[in-house]
């Protein structure tokens, strides 16, 4: 038989084995090509140039490359393992290892480059879709007409050729290392031999958990002022990464086995079917896949973390915009501007609600309520602060008290305030001692007065009138009125905005429109969010697929166990329940650890990205978990089939 017909025969016979491998190939090449096409497209030039986007995109493409390579190499491992028997057979009938390798390479080349072509075609179509979504999200004007980029194609080809070379290298090593006998056994031999837990493993297990805990604790202190210089900060970040990643590895290497063995010991040898199928299997398998699981967990954590942070930014844009305008749709600063605006609205029959406040700036001594160890280069005994009356704010403040409101999250981190304390208000001549009673969330006046998120003070109306008589003219040279307008009918907002932009205003530069601010923010964040979303989805799908492939492989090697259990009288329903439990662990453990990692990462520095953490982070986590569960469910379906066939 000529080698060519052997190749073809093999291809036909093994088509079913191939489908996973082919899927992995098409998926990753499509994705990669879509990404590079987008990257090199002219339409991206403005966005890429305008923002720090350039660096973001390069980082993203390196990450993408890494995950694609890991994914393909893993798919190939499973693939070659499935075929080990066949390789053994070839050797048995007298083929040299060299010849087998050539045979495999040729066969692989057909599959590989065939899938690559399909992938590129699909990727091209996909990238059109993506760029449309991109423009939808960012609102950047541009034509969604994407041209085929030969540069993108070239880069994709080079990258995948390199990965192909890696795969070939792996196959050479695999074939070289194996004897005929061991090739026959690869499949039947599970990836592990169960043995009693050694003391060493217990130590590793405990150490792994401890490392992760240390990483988490340090991450919580990252911006608390313990690390004041940049070098210390980077040192701490590196330390956290090191602890958490090594800890994760040791966790899979030892802790899982250790924890499970504690549970098992407690059962005294009497396990029910769920425990038989779940505990005993993950106890040994997680250990032998520690490296892979660590990569998956890290990648998931990275994806969830990045997604959360960019969504926090995006989500906070709305908040930020509201804070800029003092919680209204438009903010104006003078009586005559307000007149002009009201007139324009009335002329066009747009109903609105007005909210106004007289605003002055005074100096506030907050030494007593400041709570920070950082060395700050400003004078806390003379802080410029905007003051408004309780009437304008719509709250009630006692005559000898003072409330602060609308304090930016990020500033709060570095200059946090106590819950209460004594402060002094400095007018031009007089000083008034007041009792501070707490911080409110609302931003009652526009950014012009709050200068990017400094708190506004609210005082009793009588006191406000007193202060007004005694203001320091040096601090109050600009405007001292705030007018906020909210359009009653959302449908008219866009028109109101157009009118607003056409008005001739005295304080044009300092009058704000909320939706303009929002638009502006979104177009800046949109690209980042898009890239991160793209990467996150890729990470999700690849790690889900890797786990799924691994489970298919595992199902195959555990099939004899199901046969035994069914012979003993366990029903398929019993086994199915056990498998569901097992998959809950197999998919759940990496997910939960990934979620935890990303939670701690996000909470250590989210305030650098936006003003709301919980909601956007939870949204990202829930969506990620749901999508990820699809792979778990697919694997359960696969197991059900295997169980059914097992007797």
């Amino acid at each position: 038989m000529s080698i060519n017909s052997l190749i073809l025969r093999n291809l036909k016979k093994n088509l079913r084995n191939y489908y996973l491998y082919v899927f992995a190939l098409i998926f990753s090449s499509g994705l990669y090509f879509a990404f590079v096409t987008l990257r090199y497209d002219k339409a991206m030039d403005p966005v890429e140039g305008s923002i720090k986007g350039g660096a973001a995109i390069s980082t993203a493409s390196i990450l993408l490359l890494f995950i694609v390579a890991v994914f393909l190499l893993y798919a190939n491992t499973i693939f070659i393992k499935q075929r080990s028997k066949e390789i053994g057979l070839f050797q048995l009938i007298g083929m040299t290892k060299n010849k087998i390798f050539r045979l495999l390479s040729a066969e692989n080349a057909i599959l590989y480059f065939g899938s690559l072509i399909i992938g590129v075609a699909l990727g091209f179509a996909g990238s059109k879709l993506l760029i449309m979504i991109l423009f939808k999200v960012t609102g950047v004007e541009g034509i969604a007409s994407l041209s085929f980029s030969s540069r993108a194609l070239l880069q994709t080809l080079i990258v995948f050729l390199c990965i192909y070379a890696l795969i070939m290298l792996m196959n050479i090593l695999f074939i070289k290392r194996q004897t005929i006998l061991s090739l026959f056994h690869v499949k039947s031999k599970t990836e592990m031999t169960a043995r009693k837990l050694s003391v060493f493993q217990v130590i590793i297990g405990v150490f792994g958990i401890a490392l992760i805990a240390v990483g988490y604790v340090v991450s919580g202190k990252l911006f608390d002022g313990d690390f004041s210089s940049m070098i210390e900060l980077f040192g701490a970040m590196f330390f956290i990464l090191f602890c958490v990643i090594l800890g994760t590895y040791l966790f899979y290497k030892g802790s899982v086995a250790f924890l499970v063995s504690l549970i098992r010991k407690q059962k005294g040898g009497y396990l029910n079917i769920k425990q038989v199928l779940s505990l005993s299997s993950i106890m040994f398998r997680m250990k032998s896949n520690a490296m892979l699981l660590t990569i998956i967990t890290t990648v998931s954590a990275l994806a969830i973390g990045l997604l959360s942070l960019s969504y926090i930014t995006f989500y906070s844009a709305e908040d930020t915009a509201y804070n800029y305008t003092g919680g209204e749709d438009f903010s104006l600063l003078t009586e005559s501007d307000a007149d002009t605006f009201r007139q324009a609205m009335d002329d066009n029959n747009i109903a609105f609600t007005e909210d106004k406040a007289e605003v002055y700036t005074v100096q506030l001594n907050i030494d007593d309520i400041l709570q920070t160890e950082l060395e700050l280069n400003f004078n806390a005994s003379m802080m410029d602060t905007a003051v408004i009356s309780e009437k304008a704010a719509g709250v009630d403040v006692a005559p000898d008290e003072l409330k602060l409101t609308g304090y930016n999250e990020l500033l709060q981190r570095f200059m946090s305030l106590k819950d209460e304390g004594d402060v002094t208000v400095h007018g031009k001549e007089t000083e008034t001692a007041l009792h501070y009673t707490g911080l409110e969330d609302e931003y009652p006046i526009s950014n012009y007065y709050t200068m990017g998120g400094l708190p506004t003070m609210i005082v009793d109306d009588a006191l406000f009138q007193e202060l007004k008589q005694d203001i320091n003219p040096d601090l109050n040279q600009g405007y001292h009125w705030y007018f906020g307008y909210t359009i009653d009918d959302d449908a008219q907002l866009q028109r109101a905005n157009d009118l607003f932009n056409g008005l001739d205003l005295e304080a044009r530069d300092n009058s704000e429109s909320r939706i303009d601010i929002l638009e502006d923010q979104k177009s800046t964040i949109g690209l980042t969010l898009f890239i991160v979303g793209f990467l996150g989805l890729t990470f999700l799908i690849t790690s889900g697929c890797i786990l799924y492939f691994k489970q298919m492989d595992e199902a195959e090697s555990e099939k004899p166990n199901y046969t035994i259990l069914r012979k003993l009288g366990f029903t398929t329903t019993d086994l199915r329940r056990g498998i569901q439990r097992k998959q809950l662990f197999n998919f759940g453990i990496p997910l939960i650890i990934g979620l935890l990692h990303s939670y701690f990462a996000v909470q250590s520095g989210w305030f650098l990205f936006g003003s709301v953490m919980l909601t956007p982070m939870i949204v990202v986590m829930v969506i990620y978990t749901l999508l990820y569960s699809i792979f778990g469910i697919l694997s359960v379906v696969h197991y059900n089939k295997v169980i059914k066939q097992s007797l």
Partner: protein
Amino acid sequence: MGILEATRIQKNYGNKFNKQEVLRGVDLSIEEGEFVGIMGSSGSGKTTLLNVLSSIDRASGGTILIQNNEITNMKENQLAEFRKNHLGFVFQDYNLLDTLTVKENILLPLSIKKVPKKEADRKFEEVASQLGIMELQNKYPSEISGGQKQRTSAARAFIHEPSIIFADEPTGALDSKSASDLLNKLSSLNANRKATIVMVTHDPAAASYCSRVIFIKDGQIYTQLNKGQQERQAFFKDIMSTQGVLSGVQNEH
């Protein structure tokens, strides 16, 4: 009425066009407390017969009654239910779960029946000490020898006191010392616990431990031998000669 009554059992493999008749009408009756051996040349259908009798495989025809339960037309779940209550298994390749310790493996059949833990522990100690694997209880299968694995497998078959124990070439993978060890244990369990055992083997020495040996050939029962009051040695010679005749006849074909 025996504990197991099988009448005209047939088993075919393949499809309509390419049918292979492996069993062609086997009649078999086994009394309670018997230790029955099934012999025959390789490929004669011993494993098939055992699988069909033990409900692991379905017969193509005929009826099987175990303790007056007809298993031939039971549903899959009823069969599982039946197996867990009435049957025990020992296989040539041990069929132990390699991720469970010896004790966990042995306790599996009790766990299906949700026997209370105290009672499970008591039963375990009883059967494990009879089979001499008490000290191994916390080891994993990969840490013990073939003979010890097979004794573990036997303990698992006996622990829930099933009506019948089916063993397929239990000594097939063992050296002769471990094999005779195991067979001694099996026959003492057979005697002490009044356990009924059906054992497939192609080894006359193993078969000589049985109280009755059935020979199958061409999918039918060829003949059977009763041990009666004979010594094991004498019975062994009988078996040898019958086997000789069996293969002699084969050679004439």
